[in-house]
């Protein structure tokens, strides 16, 4: 039987939701509306004049084959970042969950990378993989592999994916770890008595019970890889070599803040908003069915 709490008047409920509505309006609806409005114009950088072009900015973008190509780059990037940030996180959480001694220390150490800003993480990884002085590229050279992300698109993609996913592993770890703690011990013990080994218990009991957390993290990580990764790209590759790491949000950033083309930049962020919106709808409609709360 579902319980419903009903309020007697309307004043209290309005007061309770007002802060949330206010914050959404100020930090989401207003900027989003601004972006939609600005995407209809070609302004000059100083805001001295602007010309109404209707959907001209969108036409300009969608007829550009390089812009269309960056949809594919973004898809590859997002899938990789999501996988690379979630799978190791789950693995580490399972290991930490089994620890009896020193769990607190591991937990704390594993959370640290989350405190590093994306652009700083980018610089750190860039140092390690620097083609000349990087530690990792030096060892790879010793093994006979010539690392050169400056000209090799695949290596550049690998590097920005790892640098973007690294800090997120901590974030995902935290959620998986908390979720693992709430898996009832009695169910696992019952399975163990029935003779189920660790991995069988993991796949048939633990993983399904983690599904709400996994789903939440999936949505959050996809959104992260779409919106918050431009700092890493900017510091490591600037979208290159050629266009192999130019993802949609990096182009929004570089056209707007480097190129001063605010009309195109706004149109791109509107397109990005639509893409992520659709993606989230798809996720809720099709993947959430498999989630057991």
């Amino acid at each position, binding site marked *: 039987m579902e319980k419903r709490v009903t309020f007697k008047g309307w004043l209290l409920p309005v007061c309770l939701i007002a802060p949330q509505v206010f914050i959404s309006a100020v930090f989401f609806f207003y900027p989003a509306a601004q972006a939609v409005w600005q995407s209809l114009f*070609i*302004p*000059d*950088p*100083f*805001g*001295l004049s*602007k*010309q109404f*072009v209707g959907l001209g900015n969108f036409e*300009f973008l969608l007829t*550009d084959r*390089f812009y269309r190509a960056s949809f594919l780059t973004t898809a590859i990037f997002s899938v990789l970042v999501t996988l690379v940030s979630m799978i190791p996180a789950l693995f580490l959480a399972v290991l930490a969950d089994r620890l009896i001694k020193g769990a607190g220390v591991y937990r704390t150490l594993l959370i640290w990378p989350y405190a590093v800003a994306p652009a700083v993480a980018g610089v750190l990884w860039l140092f390690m993989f620097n*083609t*000349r*002085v990087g530690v990792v590229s030096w060892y790879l050279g010793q093994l006979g592999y010539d690392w050169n992300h*400056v*000209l*090799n698109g695949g290596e550049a993609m690998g590097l920005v994916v790892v640098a973007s996913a690294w800090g997120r592993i901590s974030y995902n770890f935290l959620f998986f770890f908390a979720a693992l703690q709430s898996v009832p011990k009695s169910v696992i013990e019952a399975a163990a008595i029935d003779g189920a080994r660790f991995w069988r218990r993991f796949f048939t009991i633990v993983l399904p019970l983690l599904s709400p957390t996994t789903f939440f993290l999936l949505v959050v990580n996809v959104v992260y890889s779409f919106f918050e990764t431009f700092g890493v790209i900017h510091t490591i590759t*600037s*979208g*290159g*070599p*050629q*266009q192999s790491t130019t993802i949609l949000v990096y182009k929004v950033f*570089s*056209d707007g*803040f*480097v*190129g*001063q*083309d605010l*009309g*195109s930049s706004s149109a791109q962020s509107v397109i990005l908003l639509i893409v992520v919106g659709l993606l989230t709808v798809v996720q809720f409609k099709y993947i959430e069915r498999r989630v057991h709360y």
Partner: protein
Amino acid sequence: MKNLMLGAIAAGTTAFSPIAASAQIEVQFWHAFTGRLGELVAAQVEEFNGSQDEYTVVASHKGNYSETLNAGIAAFRAGEQPHILMVFEVGTATMMGAQGAIKPVYEVMAESGAEFDPDAYIGSVKGYYTTTDGEMLSLPYNSSTPVLWVNRDALEGAGIDPDIDLSTWQQVGAVLDDLKAAGHECPLVTAWQSWIHLENFSAYHDVSFATQDNGFAGLDTELALNGEAQVAHISAMGQWAQDGKFIYTGRRNEGGANFRAGECALFTESSAGYAGISAEAEFDFDVRPLPYWEGVGNAPQNTIIGGASLWVMEGHEAEEYKGVGEFLAFLSSTPVQAEWHQNTGYLPITAAAGDATRAAGFYEDNPGTDIAVIQMTAKQPTANSKGLRLGSFDQIRGIIDEELEGVWSGDKTAQEALDSAAERGNQLLRRFEQANG
């Protein structure tokens, strides 16, 4: 305890407050320099502030070139713009288009009554920032031009005479062959590939980079960087990259680290690389003029500048502009300029500063430091070698970088890459024309 802390904070803020005496008129100056250059700017400002007591210039670092320009634009939109904003040369067309946001330097100087003689400035330096009618819009501040840096020890190690003539790319090509044959791993490296190997290349060979006099004559300019001369050069560079004779290190000046560490034999980089190379290089180096292709265009014409100029922003009081005028006149004065030129490797902006440097014996003590000056000033600039004035040029350079990477990795031919760069760049030029037309 609490009071003590408040007291400390109050004392701290007073000590660090840029406003020493409130009676003085304050002039805000936003720049993009850190490290050694940042210290030199601070020293100039301090000297100016100490030389008179009417005005106080407050210099603030606002990030790299792009970030400084953005900070200036954002500040203008918020009505908080500084008096003087440092803008890199690729932002020139953006600033020129911003009528109503900028106050041309010739106007500021005329109104302020400060000392100003437009003819004192070196033509090929001020040309970049001057209208076709000869009116100076922004004050050239730090200008450099590309030259060839040579690691003499590396040449000697490969059995090549370190004094070998490297004036032409034909000669350089032969040396690259010898270096490669001797097993050298990094014969040639470059910084700022578009600036040196396309923009300056075009000016130096007197071929056009863009129509309408490289954009000086109008916003309806189109890129011409896919001309015969440029394609031949990029094609040769591409072949060198395939053969391991030219090593690509990145879009900016990443190659500088390789050269300064002694790993590379030849390095095309700005003359302003002098400060870093002379401080770090533990090998015998010298500086040569940028090579040209013998028999192509009218080479050697003159090279063009890179660097930044100072723009005066609109929307301040007349008496503040007087202070701006005084400060700009101070920066242009011979001792200040000569010192700046000698410390940084940037070009002197006035002929007098160059003469003073020569008279002081600086060029004799530091051989090669005058090569950039000679390379810039040996010939009268032509329509192809006055400079570039293209909108959205920062983005266009990004496109050129992408396309050149296609050539270096062997994915594209020089013709394909430059055709594509021109086509994509032209789209941005049309948008800029629409926004500023």
